[in-house]
């Protein structure tokens, strides 16, 4: 298995604040790589650098695409999605609320359809080549609606969906761009245990069937520990540990970052319970 993404010495400063400090890691194709860490550790900043929303101060972000290598830090945000085919979701859901679920998925296929519509001219006349391409796009949208159990909401406005459905729609929308790497920013936030379990199988399906790399930021340890192939732990902008779920779970630096130095010092109760629970039956 080859590397999909190589991050070398990534550093991002906001004024005097160093959000990410010399972080290097790599992610592989057909694997789920999780980035975890306490709040404010710089996880979302890594994503924003990868997807071109931030320009890092130092570092090299290489996306390997066969013989080609895209230097993500040099590309504009929409070019990252267009050329390097990196798709992402957002921590606070960003759908197109007043548009229908199906329209959300068609907007995701914009570049392909724009080409087919001859930059609007062919589409305006109504040529068949465009109509065929649109039918195919609807087919792809239907496929992902089916995979995310949203088929019966296809014509509803995205804002009318319940929270969990909106999260899954965002994943479906990202997948409709036909990505090579999928970056998910806390996909399980606000989901109940049943929904998290469904999310797990959806992400495993994406990894195994579509053979792409998945990069995952998540606080929900039941998701992270179960489906991740590789985990990177950040704290205060530095990488403190890396490895398989088993290695990371027992790493003293990770335990220190999550639970503090002394065991009786302000435990974040949920994290503690999750970590220990996973350890005991894992």
């Amino acid at each position, binding site marked *: 298995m080859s590397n999909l993404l190589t991050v070398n010495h990534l550093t991002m400063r906001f004024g005097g604040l160093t959000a990410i400090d010399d972080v290097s890691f790599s992610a592989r194709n057909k694997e789920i790589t999780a980035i975890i860490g306490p709040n404010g550790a710089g996880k979302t900043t890594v994503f924003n650098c990868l997807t071109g929303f931030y320009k890092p101060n130092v570092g090299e972000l290489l996306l390997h695409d066969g013989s080609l290598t895209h230097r993500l830090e040099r590309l504009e945000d929409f070019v990252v999605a267009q050329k390097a085919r990196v798709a992402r979701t957002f921590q606070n859901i960003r759908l*197109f609320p007043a548009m229908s679920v199906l329209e959300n998925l068609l907007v995701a296929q914009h570049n392909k359809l724009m080409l087919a519509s001859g930059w609007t001219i062919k589409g305006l006349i109504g040529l068949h080549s465009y109509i065929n391409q649109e039918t195919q796009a609807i087919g792809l949208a239907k496929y992902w609606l089916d995979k995310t159990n949203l088929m019966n909401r296809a014509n509803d406005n995205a804002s009318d969906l319940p929270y969990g459905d909106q999260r899954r729609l965002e994943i479906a929308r990202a997948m409709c761009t036909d990505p090579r790497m999928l970056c998910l920013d806390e996909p399980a936030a606000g989901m109940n245990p049943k929904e998290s379990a469904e999310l797990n199988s959806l992400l495993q399906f994406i990894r195994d069937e579509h053979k792409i790399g998945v990069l995952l930021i998540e606080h929900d340890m039941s998701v992270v520990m179960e489906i991740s192939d590789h985990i990177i732990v950040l704290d205060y902008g530095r990488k403190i540990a890396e490895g398989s779920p088993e290695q990371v779970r027992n790493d003293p630096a990770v335990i220190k970052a999550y639970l503090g130095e002394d065991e009786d010092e302000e435990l974040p109760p949920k994290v503690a319970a999750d970590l220990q629970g996973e350890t005991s039956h894992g």
Partner: protein
Amino acid sequence: MSVLKSENLPPIIKDSFITGLITLILAIPIVGLPTINATEGLQIEPRWSVVIWMVLAVFLGRLVLNFWWHREQPSSSSTSPLNTPFLQSLQQLLKFIIPIGVLFALILPTMPFASRYVMDVAILVITYIMLGWGLNIVVGLAGLLDLGYVAFYAIGAYSYALLANYFDWSFWICLPLAGVFAAISGILLGFPVLRLRGDYLAIVTLGFGEIIRVILLNWYEFTGGPDGISGIPRPSFFGLEFKRSSEGTFSSFFGLDYSSMHRIIFLYYLILALALLTNFVTLRLRKLPVGRAWEALREDEIACRSLGINPTNTKLTAFAIGATFGGLAGSFFATRQGFISPESFTFIESAVILAIVVLGGMGSQIGVVLASVVLIGGTELFRELEEYRMLAFGALMVGIMVWKPRGLLAHREPTIRIETEGSS
């Protein structure tokens, strides 16, 4: 429906009474005690009867309103205006209204009541409908608040007037050129404002509208400045002019008696065709990737970027296409008036066009039609009110916004639907 519970009666009367009292307090100094110029200087001439009538009118009006508000509400689940039967019936209604409206517009000139005045008002209303539809692309679909739309209208009008004056080109050559010039200026406006949104964008576009007007006003050698341009050629019907002459005119070719109405009716059909073209193109674009990208950009620009949509191109196409229709309408305006000056392209025009889009319901094509019929046609109806006309215009706008805060027709239909199992 309108059964009233008896315990509601005292508060209703009390509320109406208080409203009447407030009117009385306000009306005594403002309405009741006007000053008049008499020979001995300013004098007060009380008008108590007017005050009494006003108070009575407000009291009774409030009473009626209160009864309306307090009428027995049917169970809350079925009163929601968004329930499906209501929407379905509305959609069925719209299906009939659109063809009937287009048909009515087509046969309007043959109607017995179609006098010169009626046709002039109809042309005015349709011009605003076209402008509203053009601006709807920028504001309603792409969500870019444009307060300077009248600049494109002006560019279209001056393009035609200047090309016709300097080069003697015919209207039919100048019309597309006016559209092209407006589109280019739309792109020029678009570039500096690409990073701006909302209020900031609105201010820059406001400035752009003023820049164009000030240039037209001050470039005396080229545009005639405040004198404007007069003697703009009228359009011809495939080379046949509308003139009282025996050779090569519309009336002589068709063997008709000359009538000044011919040209008016021709202009009417011209603007109707232009407006319908605008509508056709807009409806078509909405269903194409570029139209969906505009709406997506309105909804969430960052999400658009994350999906690989180039926001620069998308915004520029919205500006350019919206401006094109403004330019076409401007060129029509020039040929209809025969005279243009910077006076016609003041900020208030932009505000009226924007009001039409917002009152109609952002992004709604039929909403624009309704709003311009109500606002432009309605203002014509109020012409008899003379100096209170603009007051009525303002009251109408406030009324619509109170009654329908999201515009007359705020409902948005998805551009595409698929069959789903089980539910509709």
